[in-house]
Structure formats: structure tokens, C-alpha cells
């Protein structure tokens, strides 16, 4: 109890030791479980119900007016089959952004959970890993449910495609979570997040090939769209879901998303280290 010193070698780290990334995450499990317990209900609506409205409205109802064949829909036999991978990819981006904007500001400014965490053996790197792991777990569960619910609609070209697509979606979520967190740890107030939505999330959702093939944008804008991480995610998800895989292109998508995730993670760690070095 209070006052007794720790028995030799029990839990104290030795000089120069730091926690392994895995140990750092394991020690935060109980904390993130409490966060999950109090937020999952709200997440059900935004993660599962809202996207289904989109599928019905855009895929089924609006899609009923779209009369185009596989040659104009990147291999999809219906607009519904075309738009579903786009919708799930865009949704993954939104979940990832949602988990790494306000919650990150909360950790720094409002709840100050990060300050409590770095007073313990956890380091800033562990704090970033925890926040990102939680964001990615949300992305993983949201996209899994999304794909499962849509399976009976006959929009997938194979049984294994959506499984691989799911892994791609998790990677897409990691890329956005890390990249946006790198931004969030640097901004001073939450007004900047409005900018992320207006100049980031909305245009990306509309113009990154989720709702129509980017070839329709004209040559210049098409290449702009192809440079965005969301397009790589949409394209990867779509080719896997429709079973029209261009493997070299798929590999490129994976590499781009992995690079964005890695650079974003690095910048999130350095940014938060600087922010908390007061």
C-alpha cells in the first residue's frame, strides 16, 4: 500500500528500457475498453445505419436511373455494385477522420488523457499507437458489418474478394487515421476540424471515384483524383469486390496507403512530442 517501495525488479523498468509497442498497447487496453463501452451505442447509428441509407438512396434508388454497362462502370454489372465499394471506402475515411480529430483534441486539451498517460511509463509513441489502434478497430468493425450486410444483395464478384477488400479498407482507415492525427496534434483549436471536413472529407468523398469513374473528370482532374489516398482505397476495394483485379495496380494501391500510414504515424508522433514538451 502507500509508502512501501516496489519489490526489486517487479514492474519498474531498468535504465534505458522502454516499453515495446505491444506492451504499450496492452497496458492501454483497459482504458480503451472503457471508451468503447461508453461510445459504441452512438457509433451504431453513424457507423452502420447511416451508410445503409446511402446504399439504399444512392445505390438502389438513384442507381435505378443509371443505365450503364460494365465497360463504363469499371467492370460492375450494375450501378449498385459499382457504388457499394465506393461508399464503404468513403465511410471508412469518415470513421477514421472522426476518431482522430475531436478525440485527439480531447486528449490534449479537454480531457487531458494524454497528459495523464505520459506521466506513466507510457511514451508519446504509445499514446499515438493507442489512439490509432482504437480508430483502426472502429474502422475494422464498421467496414466488416457494412460488407456483411451487403453480401446478400449480390454485389460481390467472389467470396474471397470482400475478405481481401476488408483488409484493404483497414489499411485505408489506418492511412487516414494516421494522416489526420498528424494534423490534429498540430492545430490549436477545433475550428480547424471544420476545414478538414469542408476541404478534405467532402471533396474527397464526392470526387475520388466513389460515385462515378474518375475518367469522367477530364484528364487533369482525373490525375488529381488519382493522387488522393481515398481514390487508392476506392479503386482497391472496388476491384476486389467486383473480382476484376489488376494485381500490379492493387499492389500500388497497397504501397501508397501503407506509405501514407507510415508517414502519418511518424508525423503524429513527432508532432505530439513537440506539443507535449512544455
Amino acid at each position, binding site marked *: 500500500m*502507500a*509508502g512501501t517501495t*516496489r519489490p526489486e525488479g517487479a514492474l*519498474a523498468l531498468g535504465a534505458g528500457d522502454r*516499453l515495446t509497442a505491444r*506492451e504499450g498497447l496492452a497496458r492501454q487496453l*483497459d482504458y480503451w475498453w472503457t471508451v468503447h463501452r461508453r461510445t459504441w451505442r452512438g457509433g451504431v447509428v453513424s457507423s452502420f445505419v447511416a451508410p445503409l441509407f446511402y446504399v439504399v438512396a444512392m445505390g438502389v434508388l438513384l442507381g435505378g436511373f443509371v443505365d450503364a454497362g460494365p465497360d463504363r462502370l469499371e467492370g460492375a454489372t450494375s450501378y449498385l455494385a459499382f457504388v457499394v465499394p465506393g461508399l464503404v471506402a468513403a465511410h471508412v475515411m469518415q470513421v477514421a477522420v472522426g476518431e482522430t480529430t475531436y478525440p485527439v483534441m480531447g486528449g490534449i486539451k479537454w480531457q487531458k488523457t494524454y497528459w495523464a498517460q505520459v506521466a*506513466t*511509463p507510457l511514451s508519446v509513441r504509445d499514446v499515438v499507437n493507442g489512439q490509432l489502434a482504437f480508430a483502426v478497430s472502429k474502422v475494422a468493425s464498421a467496414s466488416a458489418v457494412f460488407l456483411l450486410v451487403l453480401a446478400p444483395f449480390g454485389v460481390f464478384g467472389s467470396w474471397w474478394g470482400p475478405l481481401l477488400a476488408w483488409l484493404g479498407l483497414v489499411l485505408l482507415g489506418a492511412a487516414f487515421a494516421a494522416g489526420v492525427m498528424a494534423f490534429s496534434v498540430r492545430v490549436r483549436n477545433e475550428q480547424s476540424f471544420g476545414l478538414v471536413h469542408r476541404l478534405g472529407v467532402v471533396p474527397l468523398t464526392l470526387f475520388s471515384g466513389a460515385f462515378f469513374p474518375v475518367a469522367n473528370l477530364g484528364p487533369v482532374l482525373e490525375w488529381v483524383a488519382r493522387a488522393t489516398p481515398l481514390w487508392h482505397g476506392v479503386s482497391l476495394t472496388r476491384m476486389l469486390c467486383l473480382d476484376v483485379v489488376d494485381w500490379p495496380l492493387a499492389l500500388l494501391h497497397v504501397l501508397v496507403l501503407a506509405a501514407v500510414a507510415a508517414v502519418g504515424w511518424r508525423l503524429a508522433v513527432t508532432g505530439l512530442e513537440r506539443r507535449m514538451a*512544455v
Partner: protein
Amino acid sequence: MISARGLRKSFGDFEAVRGIDVEVARGETFGFLGPNGAGKSSTMRMVAAVSPVSGGELRILGMDPAVDGPAIRSRLGVCPQEDTLDNELNVFDNLYVYGRYFGIPRAEVRDRAEQLLEFVQLTEKRRARVEDLSGGMKRRLTIARSLVSSPELLLLDEPTTGLDPQARHVLWEQLYRLKHAGVTLVLTTHYMDEAEQLCDRLVVMDKGRIVAEGSPQQLIREHSTREVAELRFGIGENERIAEKVADVGTRLEVLPDRLLVYSDDGEEVLARVHERGLTPQAVLVRRSTLEDVFLALTGRSLVD
């Protein structure tokens, strides 16, 4: 436990800590006394191995915070100035979650959390949300949280600032008990009574520098007289009368609302003042405190 040589901290052009030397030995209660902005909290954050050192040398438990941060933090308890309790969690979960950050096994954290709630008298509040606690309870919970890892060294940054007198006394009593249990305590405060009550040894800080060091009694002996006579002649009058009593004691301080006459015998000062035909509206003879030490060293009061 702590050894600092020429320790500095700067934020851009601003130097918060301007080269301080500090040694803290195992088992002692050590204080940083000074007004707001003296550099106490910046020093504490460096000692807590969360804020990088800008210059000089710092060793905590024999280790360098720049490379051994996690190892140092695994053996420290930190009670920050600003509460970093999680408002979304209840009282018990705040302790539990925090203990898990230290890698303490789940069952053990639960036991310790219960014991600590008992220690800080919050057992009945274990299911309460942090938001619903009073300021004193929050601070006690923060102290309980800082003890969940059974630290060898406990850092307390302004532990009783903002608390009412009763809550302060409850907290002091708990800190006493920790001290007697052998925990090394390092605290910052701008309350001289707190420093006098708790600290074996302290440094007085002002504008990022250490201006004096010693035990409370030592400091008072070296920098002040045994007693102080406080004389109130009414607003505006004090300045005018100051010159008439300049030589009745060893030293005179003129404050806006009163005159402080330093002497080893306060009653004698009063007698001399009356001899000169002066009748203050109110008088008080008291022992010198650390407040007087600070006034003597810097010409300013601790609490503005």
C-alpha cells in the same frame, strides 16, 4: 533521488528556469517555494521526465530523463497542478485504468485501488463520476492515483492550491502519513504555511532562480528576525509614519496596508512605538514565517 546542476528550461526566448542546483535525498520532504511564475512547475515537469531539459544536468533516481524517461516514470508518482483525471470515468476506474498503465496485474490494481480509496477517504464515492466530486476530493483522488504504482518518489505540484482550509488540512494529514511511511515527497507551493508544515528542506525560487535554501527554521533564522510586529495606521498613513518608526526594529517593510517591523522582541517594538506617541489602529506581534523570508529576499509577497 534528484540531482540537478545548472538546470535550465526555456520556451523560445522566455527562460522559465535559469540554472538551478538541487539535491533531494531519499526519505526527505523537499519543497520549492515561490510565487506564480517562479519556475516551480517547469522544474517539476522536468523532474517528472515529461518535459525535456533545455540545459544543465538532471539525474532522477540516478537516471537521465532524456534517455531513461519510461524507467524513471515507472518509479515516480505525479500529482499535477492541473487535474488530469478522466471526467468520463468513475472514481474507481480512474485508479484502475491508471494502474494498468504501469503494467500492474488487474487483480492487484483492484486491491490497491480499494486500499487507496480508503486511504484518501473516498471509498463511498467509488462509483461517483469525477465531475461530481468537490475540488478537495478531486485532489485526493489525484493523489491516490499517483500512489497506485507504489512510487519511491512522489511529486506534488501545488497540491492544495484552490482548496478550502479544511480540505487542505485533510490533505496535509495524508501527506504526513506518506512521509512517515518513508516516501520521498517533492512539492511546490506558494503557501508558506504549507512549506513550513510539510518540508524538511526547501528552496525559495524567484524568477527562475533559487534565492535561498535550507530548512524552514534555518531560513527564518538566517533571513529574518524571531518576531514581527505588524502595525496598521490606516490606508495612506502607513507611508508617512514609516520614517518615524524606521529605527525601532532591525528592519522595516512597508506594505500598502501595514508596516512590518522586524525584531527579536515584538512587544518591545510596540512599547517604543507608543513611546513616540504613535497609536496604530491595529497591532499584531507574531513569529517570523517563510513569507517574511521571501519578502526579505525579493521585496515582494508570495501571494499577490
